[in-house]
């Protein structure tokens, strides 16, 4: 889920990078030599691997214990659920008034 979201988020940078490094040379009639194929393979593989590695690093070190679903529902740090044991705010106001 997190990886799919990351790929959606990086789709435009990825598309522009592929366009300039692969599509334009191919459209210009770049010779499909061994060197170009080797370079093209690296260009195709490295960015998705970088996205996956970044997701893994994020999951392991930056937000290791927060499930994806909670973050999607409630945002990164704000939760709408009340703290356990705390009385609702209106009850405190009613008592003090």
């Amino acid at each position, binding site marked *: 889920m997190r990886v799919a979201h990351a790929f959606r988020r990086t789709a435009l*940078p*990825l598309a522009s*990078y592929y366009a*300039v*490094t692969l599509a334009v040379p191919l459209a210009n009639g770049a010779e499909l030599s061994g060197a170009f194929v080797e*370079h093209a393979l690296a260009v195709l593989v*490295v960015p998705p691997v*970088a996205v996956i590695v970044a997701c893994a690093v994020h999951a392991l070190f930056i937000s290791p214990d927060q499930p994806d679903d909670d973050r999607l529902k409630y945002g990164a740090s704000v939760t709408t659920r009340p703290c356990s044991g705390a009385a609702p705010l209106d009850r405190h106001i009613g008592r003090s008034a």
Partner: protein
Amino acid sequence: MKMKLCVLAAAVLIAFGMKRHYTTARADDLRWILSPTAQLVGAMTGTTFTWQPREGYFSRDRLFLIEKSCAGINFMVAAFGMLMLALLHRVGSGRSAARVLGVSLLASYSAVMLVNAVRIAVAMWLAAHPAALSTFSAADVHRFEGIAVYFGGLVLLYEIAQRLDRRAAPVGRTP
């Protein structure tokens, strides 16, 4: 819609012009991009680069040459195209179209200098520490590093542009 198509056509022409200029240019013609890059790399690594006519910026103590292929024109074209597409929704009038084109050009020029300087600085560090990644050849490591830094730079630039775009005033209807 018509204005957006005109802006896209202008962007394609600019990108084509940049690529064309790069194809025919010598190192001397690319000083507008090589010079600030060499200065930034020098500031990052504490190395002095001196201009060598027809070759580029050379560091005698590190035996490193910033030449034509290090200019990062492809990155600049990719960044410019990406920013144009990301900001296209802001185009409504001739004025906003010129603003989007100008901002995209300026941002891609600034980004290419910074990202390219980081790439070259990392490449210099990797060249000085060849044993760190001995599984791959030096050329492979240089290639992987270049792709990762350029792609990372594009993603970072896109994120910054998106955040600034969200913060900026909402797009209004323009005549």
